[in-house]
């Protein structure tokens, strides 16, 4: 069953086959989580929202028009959940600053790096996070995020430069 396409697994899942959907979870959860982390910039919230997104995908599977587009569909669900989550906050900027100050990460030596990543603007943080989650395959993340390859590369480049600036110019000052 592991070799089955997303399309077949989606159809089976629609008939209530939980084992088929479990395979979709194993196949796509990593990217759903990466999107949540990329949008939210916070590990704990990304964990919660990513799980919610996968379960919402199960319940709402009937709304997926094209079974072979599950990968993009589930990422959109995750992204929308993140946006809704952020909308409930006073402002994303204040939210990130607060979370960073409270230590939303448990990454030991990576603490400064985590905070710097969290401080990147969402538009460039998301492709950056996806890039490192997806074996540095810019073409693959461009498809997942439904942007052009050149746009993906440009955003990753901008993110890397800003990250460098944050890490070298006192990123951990709050």
């Amino acid at each position: 069953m592991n070799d089955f396409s997303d399309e077949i697994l989606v159809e089976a899942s629609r008939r209530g086959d939980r084992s088929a959907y479990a395979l979709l979870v194993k196949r796509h959860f990593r990217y759903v989580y990466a999107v949540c982390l990329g949008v939210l910039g916070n590990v704990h919230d990304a964990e919660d929202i990513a799980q919610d997104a996968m379960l919402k995908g199960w319940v709402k599977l009937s709304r997926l028009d094209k079974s072979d587009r599950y990968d993009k569909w589930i990422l959109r669900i995750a992204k929308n959940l993140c946006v809704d989550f952020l909308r409930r906050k006073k402002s994303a900027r204040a939210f990130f600053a607060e979370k960073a100050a409270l230590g939303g990460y448990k990454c030991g030596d990576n603490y400064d790096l985590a905070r710097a990543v969290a401080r990147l603007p969402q538009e460039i943080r998301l492709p950056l996070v996806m890039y490192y989650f997806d074996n540095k395959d810019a073409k693959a993340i461009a498809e997942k995020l439904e942007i052009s390859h050149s746009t993906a590369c440009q955003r990753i480049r901008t993110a890397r430069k800003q990250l460098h600036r944050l890490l070298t110019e006192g990123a951990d000052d709050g």
Partner: protein
Amino acid sequence: MGSDCDSIRDRVAELISGTLKEGERAHIQGHLAECPKCRAYADRLEEEEQMLTGFFATFDSGISRLETAVLNALAGAEAPVRDRSIALGRNVIGAALARHGLAAAVLVVVTVYFVITLSWISQINECIRLSM
């Protein structure tokens, strides 16, 4: 820093992260071989690259744990809504069909009633005419 350095540094981030086009690689690497400041910049980015790669690798064990949590939740989750929506759809369609079917049946009964009644009246009239 040479005049070329600004534009080169723009591309160094791409070189290090692996998104630079193949054709531009040689030019950037050539400049880095000649320019110590840009090379130092590239070395720093390379260090950060390794930090980033290591940083995101730390999420792997967490992802497995989270996947397991999703699968556990999935076991107790309700079936996809489609099953219910289909059932609902069928109910709606069924109800519509039932309404139309009932109307059609009533129409048939009424029609048959009138045909039979007219037939009887016709026969009665015929009998009266013959008896006269």
